[in-house]
């Protein structure tokens, strides 16, 4: 009996050992795309690396990942990170846009026509094109749409609170998280940057950020601590960066428009 147990377990162990060895020696080398300006470091890794793909598969917090990927696009100007992020978020939440003059009879938010209608009235297009969007501006923009908007200045919350808020939003298919953070904290090229958050992996404590500056960086798994520190970094005027949670569930099928004051 014992001999049977020992032999079967040793076979089991051998199988596992041989499989791990196989994985170790026959894994494909990872080559980096030339559209990556600086290589991955200890704070972030590429989403299509082996580890990144594994995190994506096993992540429990990715209710909106595939909707975001469907509408994921790159910013068309150097300062348009906020606009590109807003466009991705609004399209993925299936908010009805104004009729486009370019896309015959179809509706889609685009960066070209972003300032048409109410959005152009609430914020100053010329200033935005020059400086980009602040957290306050973004909240104003989102409140012109049929959405429930929660804006969080990261400096007022503890790390655990921020993590918990983003995690719960990522399990809800009606919610999308967009974050404003400072690239320097992640040792990336650039300064303040907007991007949607698509998933969270609990084991490695990291967020999947769909970087809208696709000519610089790929979508990346960013270390949770570094990312939260990057959101807490203040901007030039000393105001904290942070994140927005957008919810389309309470306004389904209606065209309610909120007051633009925040």
């Amino acid at each position, binding site marked *: 009996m014992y001999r049977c147990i020992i032999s079967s377990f040793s076979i089991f162990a051998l199988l596992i050992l041989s499989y791990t060895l196989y994985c170790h020696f026959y894994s494909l080398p990872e080559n980096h795309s030339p559209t990556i300006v600086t290589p991955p470091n200890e704070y972030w890794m590429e989403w299509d690396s082996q580890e990144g793909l594994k995190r994506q598969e096993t992540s429990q917090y990715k*209710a909106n990942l595939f909707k975001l990927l469907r509408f994921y696009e*790159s910013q*068309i100007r*150097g300062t348009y990170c906020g606009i590109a992020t807003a466009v991705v978020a609004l399209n993925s939440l299936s908010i*009805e846009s104004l009729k486009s003059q370019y896309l015959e009879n179809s509706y889609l938010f685009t960066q070209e026509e972003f300032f048409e209608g109410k959005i152009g009235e609430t914020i100053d297009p010329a200033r935005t094109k020059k400086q980009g969007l602040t957290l306050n501006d973004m909240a104003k923009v989102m409140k012109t749409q049929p959405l429930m908007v929660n804006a969080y200045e990261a400096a007022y919350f503890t790390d655990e609170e921020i993590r918990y808020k983003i*995690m719960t939003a990522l399990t809800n298919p009606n919610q999308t998280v967009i974050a404003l953070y400072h690239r320097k904290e992640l040792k990336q090229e650039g300064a303040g940057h907007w991007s949607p958050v698509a998933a969270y992996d*609990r084991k490695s404590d990291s967020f999947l950020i769909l970087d809208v500056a696709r000519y610089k960086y790929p979508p990346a798994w960013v270390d949770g601590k570094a990312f939260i520190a990057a959101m807490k970094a203040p901007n030039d005027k000393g105001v904290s960066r942070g994140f927005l949670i957008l919810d389309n569930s309470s306004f389904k099928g209606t065209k309610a428009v909120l007051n633009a004051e925040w």
Partner: protein
Amino acid sequence: MSLLSFVVMVNVACSVSLQVSIHRLTGTCSETLQATLTLPWFIVYNLTQLLQLSLALRLEICYTFYLVEISYYRHRVYKLITLALSVLFLSNIVFSEHNFEHDQIKLDISPATTVVTPPNEHWIEWDSPEGLFRQETSQFKANLFKLLRFYEAQIRGTYCGVATAVVALNALAIKAPASQYLGKYRLFTQEEFFEGSIGEAVNKDVVKTKGLTLKDMTALMETQPLKVDPFEAVNLTDDEIRHHIISALQNPNQVVIVLYQRKELKQEGSGHWSPIAAYDCHSDSFLVLDVARYKYPPAWINADTLLASMRIPDDEGLSRGFIILDNKVEE
């Protein structure tokens, strides 16, 4: 009471899980499966709770049944397997830091307003459960994540070809000409597509009104450092087309773009360009990343339908088809 529901559970398990679990065990571990693994399954004897669970987790619940079922075999080897598995399961439960608060799965997912006509027998949405399963288990998706990284919507009604070319060129990491908007960084964009050598190869105004034909696209791609293989679908058999596309989908240096007729799929519109991102051999279908994102989502299209739609000639009698692009140019 608990014993009764346990017996019922085993009966249900025997009928369903034998077919499903063994077939599905060969697939990869999905998110919902992980949720099931970390649940304390030995406590879940309550039948109503079970029904709720099976609704939320769909077929993946059968994995847990599989364990219970296998312990009913009398043979010594099966008992050993059960022992080993249950040790693994228990250690998973004890040592995982899983937070059960977040495991509520909401089922009222609102459909996107941007689907013009609903999915039919020829295609399904990529983020439906079936679509996600195909994506996870597909073996032919070497370039899927590179394509997804650069996937974008066409910015004009006739720009499907331009958008497809931009996605393909960016995914193949071809160096773009300098842009006046992006500073020192380089990226192909639809706005500045006709700058440089591409504008010389094709007539800009014709493309803006009519879109790109198979010939135009070939001419345009040949200006870039790429090996371009155009295929007219009429000249090839079904098996040949399948073979060409599938072998390209296995190669990380190659991207397939396809020109097809939408009417064959009962979609709105006519001729259309899009990149192909993956192939699933079980359902015999291709994942097409539709660049008209305001109309249709990425979709798994039945191979037979897609091949038939490539064979339909355009208004001028020119054949549709597909192009295989390779960025590994021998010097």
